[in-house]
C-alpha cells in the first residue's frame, strides 16, 4: 500500500480500516477489484465510468497527496454523504452486497471521520 493511502495518512484503527476497505475502497481507490461481469459489455463500460468518476471525486489511495485544505473538504463531504445515506450508493450495494454499510459500522465510521476532521490542522 502507498504512503498516500488514507489508511496510512492517519492511524486508522483496524475496525475502521475494515469498514473503509469493505464499503469505500472498491470505487474510491486505485485498488478496484473488477468483478467477472465487468468483462461483459456494456456493464463493464458503465462500471468503468462509474469508478472513473468516483476516483476523480475522492481517491483514498492519493489522499496523502491532497492539500490539507482539500483533505478537510473531503472529510467534510465524506461525513455528510455517509450520514445522509448517499454513500455507499444503493445502486452499487444492490449488486455488491458486501459493500453495504450496516448502521453500527456507519456510526463507527462517521465518528472516526468527525474526529479526524476536528483535529485536522493546517501545517
Amino acid at each position, binding site marked *: 500500500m502507498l504512503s498516500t493511502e488514507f489508511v496510512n495518512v492517519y492511524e486508522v484503527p483496524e475496525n475502521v480500516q475494515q469498514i473503509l476497505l469493505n464499503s469505500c475502497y472498491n470505487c474510491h481507490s486505485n485498488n478496484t477489484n473488477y468483478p467477472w461481469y465487468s468483462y461483459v459489455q456494456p456493464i463493464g463500460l458503465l462500471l468503468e465510468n462509474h469508478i472513473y468518476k468516483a476516483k476523480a471525486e475522492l481517491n483514498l489511495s492519493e489522499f496523502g497527496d491532497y492539500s490539507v485544505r482539500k483533505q478537510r*473538504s473531503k472529510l467534510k463531504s465524506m461525513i455528510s454523504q455517509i450520514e445522509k445515506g448517499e454513500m455507499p450508493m444503493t445502486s452499487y450495494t444492490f449488486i455488491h452486497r458486501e459493500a453495504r454499510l450496516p448502521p453500527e459500522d456507519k456510526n463507527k465510521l462517521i465518528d472516526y471521520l468527525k474526529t479526524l476532521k476536528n*483535529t485536522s*490542522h493546517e501545517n
Partner: protein
Amino acid sequence: MLSLAIISWGAFAQNDYSSMNHSEKDQGKMDMKDNSSASASITVKHSKSASAVIDRYLKLKKALVEDNSQKAASESKNLFDAFAKFNLSAKSNSEQKELSEIIEDASEHAEHISENSGNLDHQREHFETLSNDIRDLIVIAGSDRTLYQMYCPMYNNGDGGMWLSSSIEVKNPFYGSKMMKCGSVQQEFTIK
C-alpha cells in the same frame, strides 16, 4: 500557512470554527488566537485581482438566498470560469502555493454546485465550504470592496456556517426564505 504579513490584525480574536464549535481545525491557520478582545475587523489590501471571483461569488450567494437552485448552478459555472482565469503568476511565490490550493478546492465546490441543479441542500453544503475558501482567498489576494463575514449558528445541525456579503444586512443563503434573517456579522474585511 496564510501569509499573515498583509493583514493588520487590530485585535482579532478567533476565527469562526474555533470559537463556535470547538473544532480546532482552523486554529493553525490563524495564529493570533490568543488576542483577547474580539473586535472583528480585518484589513486586507486593495486589489482587483479577485474582483471577478467576488462578483460571481456574490451572485451565486444571491441565487441561494432566493432559493433558486437553477440560477445557483449557472452562477457557479461562471464562478468556476473566474477561478480558471485567476492570474496566479502575478502573485508572489509564497502566496502562489496557498492560493492555488484554495482555488483548486474552491473550483471543485463551484463545479459541484453547478452540477447539482435541483438539489439546493447539496448546493448549499458546498457553498459553505466554498465560502471559507473565498474568505481565505481575499485575506491573501485582497479585495476591491468591503465585505462582511456573516455567521449562522444553526446551519449544519448546529455546527454553524459562514458566508460573505457585500452588505451588512443579513440575507441567509443557507436557508433562504425559510430563515432569511438567521445570522450576524462575525467579521468585517475593510480595504487598506
